């Protein structure tokens, strides 16, 4: 049997297809992308090495500044809000018996739907003349908010709306992960804490929370990467507008790369995105220390 499982030829047959695909479609392009980011490369001409000029240009690019700010806002907002709301929903749902599955399935439902489609729906609801504002007008509100067209403030209203829509759509995923972890905690631990006189809140704080910490790290890194990759909702809700104020890294990359065909420049944005993803994942896994307890 050992001979069978050490068979190099068979191993190659098993591993090579995945390995070749992965290398050709993922890793070589990544390396190429990093190289392009140091090149002057505009669509139809061959890439010419120009050093860090693209990155210098990024620093003076106003839209890139906005995109970076929005992406980081989005990252922090989704990590924090998904943690709090997801944990809250999970705690509520594990405390009820009747209808738990129904509520769980309803809250998770938008996660499987197309963000492109839902983005169009929210675009309508929050557009300045339609949707909610038609209702507000009927109720006699004099100056209804402009929603997705508003540009006042440091973090503008459209970004908040998009962030909340994203929370609405994806909180089910965090909730589901936390629920799975909470239901894995043995009942006797909970009972022991009740016997020792803990309230429900205290049990949650001192028993549940420490035990689901590993899952917090996992769910948070999933959220973080997801929020940095975020494209569909924003593209269909605002297309980065009004006046580039809701641009994020992904939409800026798309616009620079595939509207203006500045491949080199867009690659530099891609590299920034990649580095952010790696840093954030490492950071979360360092900060949320995963102590392993017996469950």
């Amino acid at each position: 049997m050992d001979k069978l499982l050490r068979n190099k030829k068979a191993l190659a047959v098993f591993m090579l297809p995945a390995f070749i695909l992965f290398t050709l479609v993922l890793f070589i392009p990544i390396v190429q992308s990093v190289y392009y980011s140091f090149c002057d490369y505009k669509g139809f001409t061959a890439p010419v090495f120009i050093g860090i000029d693209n990155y210098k240009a990024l620093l003076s690019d106003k839209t890139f500044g906005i995109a970076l700010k929005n992406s980081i806002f989005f990252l922090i907002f989704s990590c924090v809000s998904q943690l709090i709301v997801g944990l809250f929903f999970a705690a509520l749902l594990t405390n009820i018996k009747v209808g738990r599955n129904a509520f769980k399935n309803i809250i998770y439902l938008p996660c499987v739907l197309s963000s492109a489609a839902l983005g169009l729906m929210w675009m309508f609801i929050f557009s300045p003349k339609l949707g909610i504002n038609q209702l507000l007008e009927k109720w006699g509100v004099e100056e209804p908010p402009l929603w997705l067209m508003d540009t006042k403030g440091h973090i503008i209203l459209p970004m908040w709306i998009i962030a909340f829509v994203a929370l609405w759509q994806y909180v089910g995923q965090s909730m589901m992960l936390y629920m799975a972890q909470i239901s894995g905690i043995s009942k006797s631990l909970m009972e022991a804490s009740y016997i020792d006189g803990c309230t429900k809140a205290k049990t949650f704080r001192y028993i549940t929370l420490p035990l689901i910490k590993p899952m917090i790290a996992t769910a948070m890194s999933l959220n973080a990467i997801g929020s940095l990759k975020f494209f569909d909702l924003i593209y269909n809700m605002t297309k980065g507008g009004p006046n580039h104020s809701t641009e994020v890294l992904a939409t800026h990359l798309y616009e620079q790369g595939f509207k203006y065909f500045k491949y080199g420049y867009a690659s530099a944005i891609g590299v920034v995105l990649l580095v952010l993803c790696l840093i954030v994942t490492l950071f979360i896994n360092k900060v949320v220390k995963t102590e392993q307890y017996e469950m």
Partner: protein
Amino acid sequence: MSTKSLVAELTPASKNKKKITPIQVLIYVFLILISITYIFPLLWVFNVSFKTNKEIFTAPFALPKDVTFDNYSFAWTAGRLGVATLNSFIVCVAALVLSMIIGSMAAFGIARMRWKGAKLAMTYFLTGMMIPVHCVLIPLFTRFANLNLSNTLTGIILPYLTFSLPITIFIMTGFFKGLPNELIECACMEGANIFQIFFKICLPLGRTGLFVTGLMTFIGNWNELLVAMVFISDESKKTLPVALSKFVGPHATNYSQMFAAIVIAIIPTIVVYCAFSNKIVDGLTAGAVKG
């Protein structure tokens, strides 16, 4: 719950059996409110999709006066959603089948074969989970243009397939590691070769895992917008999410048709979800719990 047991629950006699505390009532009220925010927008989209464009501007929240199916027929034919649905289906099924075969083969190699690089190979595939697809778009785009793959369905199947591999390999490795050793030993004694062990024994036993990962990747690819938008500009090759954005014009948008298109785009996933919601949950947690 039958009416009889419901009555029994509500009568005071059963009160000492189970008390409903005010907090529980509060939780239920809150959850019902939350559920409304989830269900209502979707029902509303469904509702508006039967209205005429004029009605949307005058009374968007009322029920439609005369139900019209014109929006659907327009979106399906003139809006080319029919073609787009077919394209989406082809792309997703191809990516799904290929990623299942290739992914589970690699997973078997990692989980069961005896070689030194297994851990390293796993790490190699798992880093794929952290890499956003945006970073590889430009090199892939130029490469595919040279290979005449841009504007073909193959051109998006390849990235979809590749980006589905990490999760497939991850979940299936867990599955194959869980199979008892005796099983493989036994097959060995009977004279099975390694491919028979994989295709005839391990793969059939891992079908729950396959099903779950299949669902996850199918839904993910079905909803994917960016790659499809970049690689496909030909109208007849567009997938559903891309075809949707065509309904929003820069100057005039026909909202009623847009809503019909939204319904067409989300109905398949809703159906799949209703049928397999528990499996999807399994897949999600299996993918997240690091082994």
